[in-house]
């Protein structure tokens, strides 16, 4: 039975297994970041932002141009995060707010429209030259030994950066007054207004934070996938799956969901029985697991059951 595996079984080659898990955690934490961005926006404005990936893509391309113009890497990283933040705030203020109190489908159409618009802009500006473009990482791609497994420095960098972003968000939401106001707005905007919370500003800030987190994810993905207008598409798909799996209104759920999807995808890709289906089936297999889990927990792992009071 073991012969049909493409790779030696985990118990025969624990090193390979370890590598797959760690690099799965690394890509998984990118999905987790994008899923977090989606959840941030969904919680505060009830909007599914289909353009989340494309917003990150636009920022990453802008960073590429700045790097090409000779700006130092850390300056560009800082500008990239600020750009993501500003883009998120701008999008909420200009195109989301007018449809906020309209039927939900209107917002869906608006974010889909934004998706197409940003994608076309990027193609128009950056697709003249050669694609995909190489996007470097400050962490490098050196292989290092981590106990059992060999992983790249970029993978470790991704894990560290993701952890920092999550810690910052956690502190912001749970230990600052601003975070208190943002959480209150997500739970009950009407009552928040009565508390003197500037609800509009909180919503804009939610989008801005999501934009910044998305931008970080974009600059972490680009060194692996290279840069082209559609480079965030697959990530967005995985991130959506992760967000729904974890519970669309739960930030911890987004993180767990993202890591799960990353690891599952890697393990399915490595250990598929080759004569039945190849590693190409890793995405459908991963999604199949999610669908089965959602059949039993429709609200996702950590999501709350929607109850309506009459």
């Amino acid at each position, binding site marked *: 039975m073991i012969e049909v595996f493409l790779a030696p079984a985990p118990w025969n080659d624990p090193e390979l297994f370890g590598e797959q898990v760690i690099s799965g955690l690394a890509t998984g934490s990118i999905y987790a970041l994008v899923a977090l961005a989606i959840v941030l926006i969904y919680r505060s404005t009830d909007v599914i932002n289909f353009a989340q990936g494309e917003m990150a893509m636009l920022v990453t391309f802008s960073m590429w141009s700045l790097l090409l113009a000779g700006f130092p890497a850390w300056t560009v990283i800082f500008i990239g995060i600020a750009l993501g933040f500003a883009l998120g705030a701008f999008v909420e203020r200009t195109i989301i707010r007018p449809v906020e109190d309209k039927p939900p489908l209107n917002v869906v159409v608006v974010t889909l429209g934004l998706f197409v618009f940003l994608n076309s802009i990027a193609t128009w500006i950056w697709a003249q030259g050669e694609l995909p473009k190489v996007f470097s990482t400050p962490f490098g791609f050196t292989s290092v030994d981590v106990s059992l497994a060999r992983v790249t420095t970029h993978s470790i960098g991704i894990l560290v950066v993701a952890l920092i972003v999550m810690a910052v968000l956690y502190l912001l939401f749970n230990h600052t*007054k601003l975070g*208190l*106001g943002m*959480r*209150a707005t997500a*739970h*009950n905007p*009407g*009552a*928040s*207004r*009565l*508390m*003197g*919370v*500037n609800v509009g500003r909180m919503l804009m800030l939610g989008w801005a934070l999501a934009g910044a987190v998305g931008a970080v994810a974009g600059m972490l993905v680009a060194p692996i996938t290279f840069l082209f207008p559609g480079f965030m598409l697959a990530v967005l798909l995985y991130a959506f799956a992760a967000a729904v799996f974890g519970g669309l209104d739960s930030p911890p759920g987004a993180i767990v969901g993202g890591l799960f999807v990353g690891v599952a995808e890697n393990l399915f890709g490595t250990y598929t029985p080759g004569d039945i289906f190849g590693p190409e089936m890793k995405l459908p297999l991963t999604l199949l697991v999610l669908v089965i889990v959602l059949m039993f927990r429709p609200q996702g792992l950590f999501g*709350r059951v929607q109850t309506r009071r009459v």
Partner: protein
Amino acid sequence: MLKIEGIEASYGPVKALHGVTIEVPEGSVVTLLGPNGAGKTTILRVVSGLLRPSAGRVEFDGRRIDRRSTEAIVRMGISHVPEGRQLFDEMTVHENLMLGAYTRNDRDGIKADIKRLNGYFPILEERREQPAGSLSGGEQQQLAVARGLMSRPRLLLLDEPSLGLAPLVSREIFRILRQVNREEGITIFLVEQDATSALSFADYGYVVETGRVVIEATSDKLKEDENVRRAYLGY
């Protein structure tokens, strides 16, 4: 302290208020009586800036407030404890209180106020780290009032504080409110279904029907009024 002059307001095409005039003097308790859908809640919503009146004006301390944002109105010293309590169910009792103090920046003062309010509502201290949604109805109403007081208002708007509470629990709420009014000098503008409790608590009352004030008088006079007795007191 609060002057409402000839306000009109609508929800979409439906007109809810047809020129309402009400005055709430400083330090007093004023109540609004009337059947469901008469526009009582709408009047409170206009005062706290949740709804813009289409005509008329609202003044607080002689300053016009009917064009201001809710945030600004809270900062001026008006706190609105809404109908159905509207707590942040998944957040803790303490976080709910902190949200009540959202417009304030004096850490020590906030701490001192929480301590002081724990004197009025001892149960909130016990439940401090529990989610607000896990409290009983009476406890939730106490939390809603306490949260409303955390902004240090001079005028407290209360919408149906006894709704859904057992008579004994609601009596306790009114006892605390009377204490708050007397000891803290906080003016109270109250909407209440239970006319008996409301009139024994308030100094002055207005009866609102279909968006208009139909009777206004001191509480004692309203208790004697034939129509009020038949319609709202049930004897």
